[in-house]
């Protein structure tokens, strides 16, 4: 295989993982925009997506489509519980405390999953078989195509939702200015609840489509969450196109690094990117926009 073809192959597989990072990144952005916190449990939603799908489809033998929707609903319900429970009831509304609560929640979910599903990795069968297709000389798994297709549909649906529906516009208003949104009568609490529910659903979808390729187990949540967060920061924290761009970029960079440099350290690369982005990019996050009136 020529080098350029190899690189093309890496890019294609990078886009695959990148799509799921994009979905996870959107989840982070949604909650951050509504509440200002980083939801550490985001990665666990992804893990739960895979786990629930395995439970419904493989263990309970439900047909694929109902299992898919049931999974998304189940995980969305957990997201809802998280917001209604610990987050809403927290005595302190300080951002840092809330973030730490999501950390506690993510550990709790991880611990619970370990007990319910055990420690062994599990997997799902690919949606439409395993025979690779050939695209411009490179091998493409059918599952990858599903991943692209589903990601694109979800992003398009979200785009429509935020631009064209009342609720979507209300959520954008809350993201822009919570106080103004409150003053114009938008039920901010409900929007926050929605953001958690949506993020959980997005995480679930990411988990479902990714599991056939990477398998899943009770502890994949943290890594995926951190990578999703890296992607969000990379592309511009808080914006959906940014999350998508960041996710795809991270996936490609990770894949190229794994293929061309070293596959053992590819996880470290994602975090190196995170650190570099946080150190050099913050001008948009930390700059003039953060000056407080004294």
């Amino acid at each position, binding site marked *: 295989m020529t080098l350029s073809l190899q690189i093309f192959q890496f890019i294609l597989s990078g886009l695959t993982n990148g799509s799921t990072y994009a979905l996870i990144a959107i989840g982070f952005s949604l909650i951050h925009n509504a509440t200002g916190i980083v939801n550490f449990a985001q990665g666990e939603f992804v893990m739960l997506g895979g786990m629930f799908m395995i439970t419904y489809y493989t263990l309970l033998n439900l047909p694929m489509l109902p299992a898919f929707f049931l999974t998304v609903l189940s995980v969305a319900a957990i997201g809802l519980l998280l917001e209604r429970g610990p987050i809403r009831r927290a005595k302190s509304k300080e951002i840092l405390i809330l*973030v730490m*609560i999501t950390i506690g929640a993510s550990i709790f979910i991880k611990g619970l999953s370990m007990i319910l599903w055990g420690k062994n990795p599990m997997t799902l069968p690919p949606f439409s078989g395993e025979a690779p297709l050939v695209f411009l000389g490179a091998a493409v798994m059918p599952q990858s195509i599903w991943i692209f297709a589903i990601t694109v549909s979800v992003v398009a649906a979200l785009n429509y939702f935020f631009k064209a529906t009342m609720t979507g516009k209300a959520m954008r208003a809350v993201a822009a200015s919570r106080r103004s949104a409150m003053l114009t009568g938008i039920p901010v609490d409900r929007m926050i609840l929605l953001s958690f529910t949506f993020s959980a659903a997005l995480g679930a979808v990411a988990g479902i489509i990714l599991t056939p390729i990477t398998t899943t187990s009770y502890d994949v949540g943290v890594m995926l969450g951190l990578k999703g967060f890296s992607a969000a920061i990379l592309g511009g924290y808080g914006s959906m196109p940014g999350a998508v761009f960041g996710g795809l970029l991270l996936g490609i960079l990770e894949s190229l690094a794994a293929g061309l440099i070293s596959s053992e350290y590819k996880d470290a690369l994602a975090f190196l990117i995170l650190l570099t982005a946080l150190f050099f990019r913050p001008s948009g996050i930390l700059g003039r926009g953060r000056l407080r009136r004294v």
Partner: protein
Amino acid sequence: MGKKNKIYLLIYALAIFTLPAILQNNYHLMVLNIAALNIVVVIGLNLLMGYAGQISLGHAAFFGLGAYLSAIFTTTYGFPLWPTMIMAMVFTGIIANAIGIPTLKLEGHYLVMATLGFNVIVYIVMVQLDAVTGGPSGFAGIPRLQIGNFAFDSDRRVYYLLWAVSIVVLFLSLNLIHSRVGRAMAALSHNEIAAKCAGVDTESYKVKIFVISAVLASLAGSLYAHYITFISPGTFSFFYSIQVVTMILVGGMGSLWGSAFGAILLTILPEVLHAVKEYNVLIYGLILMVVLVFFPRGLFPGIAEAFGKRRREVLSDSRKQLALEKRA
């Protein structure tokens, strides 16, 4: 540091050093030894979180750096134990300084993520650089602690050494809190702009405290390595970083005594729950959530507050009673 603190320290030290006479079981001593080391890490971290107002979820990395540097240089290269420990602390301090400067310019949760990312990178290096570190199966054969010809080759002997270190660290940290630097840190953690305008170089202090907390973690790591004589990457994952933060939150941010007790409590707790080891992770998550939701200022301060309220109510009741009786 005030008379009160000095008295508490004395009582604390007395209690700690007389305990081994009562405890015969070596296993109990070992648990307490680990608690002593956790206290060192937690005190450093509390200086950072409670007094300088910064958060780190990556201190397991510094703990691990101390452990691995000590382990590798004394075992593989035969360097002397105590100088290596100091060298490890210096090296860890330099790294902490390097990443601290850009990292501490970040705020809140970005800082959390950056420190966590750092932890993960260090962890991955520990696992992957297996020719040097022994990889996932760990690194064994680390020389025991000894001073001259005196070897600390029993849990009992190590107990006195580790707890002496732990108490000294607590003592020196209490000193620091009650000093010009301590006041500057407390000011900057509470109101950074006012602190700056009063003349405190907040950026420099944040980095210095970060370095100190990292160096303390490194010290604890080195001692750990020479005590257990075997280390593996699993001990230094971000779960440990979260455990030490939990100890601080339970003890109350900004209270060194609270941190010490939080560390002791949460080191003993998993051992007590040994029978249900599977539930360790679950229970940690639960404790973290419950404490943060209901006692955001810390478990001990929260309980103290509740007691304080009860006592005040009782007092005012008895005064009312007295007033009624006088009228009668």
